[in-house]
């Protein structure tokens, strides 16, 4: 189903309703400049389009509205990631700019940004980014900027951009092992475990952990290390190495 063209205010209403739903927050606070009444132009358009419905205590998303809201959230959170990871915009400024930015990321462009960023799964604040077609297809751009460690090939290098794990103990473990933003990494091997140089040491992790370490790629992917004989070169795995596996 094609998405309905909406005003910026209407999109903000949709995303705020979706966030309230996501956080299971009963009390929905309308975004600035919007009145919580059916006469407000933003709400009026949405009601008209069948994306939201009026309830006794306010408004809620319809199924179609929820789909479109996911797309809005996706663009908004991708925009935050883009600003934070690539442009290094500071945290508060990023959130503010992202709201405007998101509206400009029209459908289609979001998949390109998502691919560029290595299909991130969470925004810098830890909220999930709804997956798009590109994530399901596992596509990879010619010039990815940020990528999860699990999607890199042997020899590629970069610096750690961020870690994204829901578990505190695993985050602490990765930090303690030296996987801290800014640390240079060179990937050495992908199978049966991921092996990479982390600063001066070498670390092996499983796929789950590798997926949660995001790396900002550096231009040169030639590792300054001796070239091993053919039989000792990294093994690229039996299966296609570009599987964009996401749950």
């Amino acid at each position, binding site marked *: 189903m094609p998405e309905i063209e909406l005003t910026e205010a209407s999109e903000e209403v949709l995303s705020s309703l979706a966030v309230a739903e996501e956080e299971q927050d009963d009390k929905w606070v309308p975004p600035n400049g919007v009145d919580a009444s059916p006469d407000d132009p933003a709400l009026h358009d949405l009601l008209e389009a069948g994306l939201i419905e009026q309830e006794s205590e306010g408004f809620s998303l319809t199924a179609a509205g929820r789909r479109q809201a996911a797309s809005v959230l996706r663009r908004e959170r991708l925009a935050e990631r883009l600003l934070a990871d690539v442009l290094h915009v500071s*945290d508060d400024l990023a959130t503010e700019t992202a709201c405007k930015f998101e509206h400009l990321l029209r459908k289609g462009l979001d998949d390109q940004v998502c691919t560029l960023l290595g299909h991130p799964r969470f925004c*810098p*604040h*830890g909220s999930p980014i709804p997956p798009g077609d590109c994530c399901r297809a596992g596509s990879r751009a010619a010039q990815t900027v940020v990528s999860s460690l699990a999607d890199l090939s042997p020899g590629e290098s970069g610096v750690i951009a961020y*870690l994204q794990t829901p*578990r*505190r*103990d*695993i*985050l*602490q*473990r*990765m*930090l*303690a*092992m*030296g996987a*801290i*933003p*800014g*640390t240079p990494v060179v990937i*050495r*091997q992908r*199978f*049966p*475990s991921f*092996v990479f140089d*982390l*600063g*001066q*040491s*070498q*670390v*092996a*992790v*499983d796929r*789950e*952990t590798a997926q949660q370490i995001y790396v900002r790629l550096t231009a040169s992917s030639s590792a*300054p*290390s*001796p*070239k*091993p*004989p053919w*039989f*000792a070169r*990294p*093994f690229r795995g039996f299966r296609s190495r570009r599987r964009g596996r996401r749950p």
Partner: protein
Amino acid sequence: MILRALHFFRRLLSGQRGCGCDSCVFAGPTTARKLALFGSPNVGKSVIFNQLTGSYAVVSNYPGTTVEVVRGRARIGDVLLEVVDSPGTYSLTPLSQDERVARDLLLNDPPDLLVHVVDAKNLRRMLPLTFQLIEAGLPIVLDLNIIDEATRAGLQVDLAALARRLGLPVVATAAAVGLGVDRLRVLVSGPVPSVSAFSVEYPAPIESAIERITTALRGEYEISARALALQLLHREAEIWERVLRADPDAIPEIEKAVSDAEAQYSQPPAFPIAVARQKAADRLAGEVVVARPRPLRATFAEVLGRLAMHPLAGIPLLIAVLYVGLYLIVGRLGAGIVVDFLDGQLFGEKINPAITAWVERLLPYPTWSSLLVGEFGVITLGLRYAIAIVLPLVGIFFLTFAVLEDSGYLPRLALLADRLLKRIGLSGRAVIPLVLGLGCGTMATLVTRVLETRRERLIATFLLALAIPCSAQLGVILGLLSIHPLGLAIWAGVLIMVFLLSGFLAARLLPGEAARFYVEVPPLRLPSLRNVAVKTFSRLRWYAAEVIPLFLLASLLIWLGQLTHIFDLVLSVFRPLVSAIGLPQAAADAFLFGFFRRDYGAARLFDVHAAGGVSGVPLVVAMVTITLFIPCIAQFLVMQKERGLRTALAVSGFILPFAFGVGALLNLILTTLEVQI
């Protein structure tokens, strides 16, 4: 009572001192300076410990083999030092039990002086822990170890500048070759340095939380309030409990300060804290390390190290390691040559007849002399099994294991095996306890501490008790079956199947998060002969202290049992079970022996076989059953200590019928198919 006597005996044999118990007679003078070695895994703490004390910590090139605090003594000039070696830890916020042991050392028994041992070529990664130790308010000497590897890599560290910036004495050593150790000796025996004033500055929200917490804290603690506040910000459960006990009134304010800090970030505060420490470390390392990278040529060790991780080259290499290490060295050399000589020639032909004749002349009462030299005599059986069969086998295994450990091969094995081990609910880290279990299941059960989740520790404990043969069993079995390749293949096949299947089921049945795998892969190093010898010796000593008393006790109990006919009663319980799996009656006592020590049972089987009692299919069935069979008393005790009595009972309760069930099934299959072995 018996246990206490055993415990005392074990202590006496292992020569432990400074054991920490109140009534300890060997506590020595109280003036000894307490010196603790602290640092990440694999930086050479244990080598330095050995250099300082001239004694035996277990050293290895694998993160996580020191799972307990090791103590030793040293005298430098007139300063008496009590040196403590701690398990390697990456930070002061522990994430596994062995790291907790290290952290608790600082918390419960703070040393007078701490030596922070770091890998000189990786200063950038090591400094964050130095900062944490400084924060804790302890006097520290910083030891840049493995300085030779750093020099080879073209790195030069300005020691004086580092010492000045940190406000600590700094020394560079290459302890494995003894370089710089004298300077370290001088530093640790000299005046205790004052506590460094160096401080990492955290982002404002963290600093303000620290400020609020330190103001709220009133109680007495062993570490500084600032370090305590940072641990509270990490929500370290044990520290919270401590504060709850010492400062119950401060808890609401602390809780508020911590949650306010948490609200400021999208990630837990651990994240900005780690980033701030790393930034400070980067800045400092940038100032003091001069890197002149040299064009490196891959050394043989590097090529081999990479090969060992390679899935195609790694597996043949693993098979080669197993073949040489287990089959050739433990099986052929250990069981075939050494045991044959010690047991057959030395004890069988010389010692036993001589002692028997001598005892019988001195003690002309058959009842009493049989205690010492009878069929189950303390000397002729207990001591012979220990010295002639079990110790040589275990010793040879420990030697092989020590070489593997020190070379840095095991982390590579771990990363190869991780995917397979995930299927049975473990992770690659479990390789250490599992491989060590091929030496001694009791020791390996202790080492399951390096595993992070309770679920992993439970599964590993279970598999160690069930399907991993210990080296004495392995030696005897490989020795007996090496002339029957088919029998050996059946035995190995059944065990591998049981291992994988029961692990698979255990992983399905036990709730809990899947284990995560990460391991640091150290460079492959040529093991130092001294370290390998020291390690093998200290493990063997631990083992001897563990088994010899039990062997003697078992002989005594069996003698008593025979005298009172209880022995026959118990044997009559076993006989139907033994017949059920198609074994001759003579094999029944091997199982009874297995209760005391697994290796004791295996040794008995060796005897029964030598007497022509069992061979062919029954021999293979007996081998399988006795390998699966109940963990020995020592392993049971360790299981109970580490995992709790209920788990230990449940595991044993499952294994006993299971082992006989598998034996009966195997017997049925082999006899139905009329397999000739």
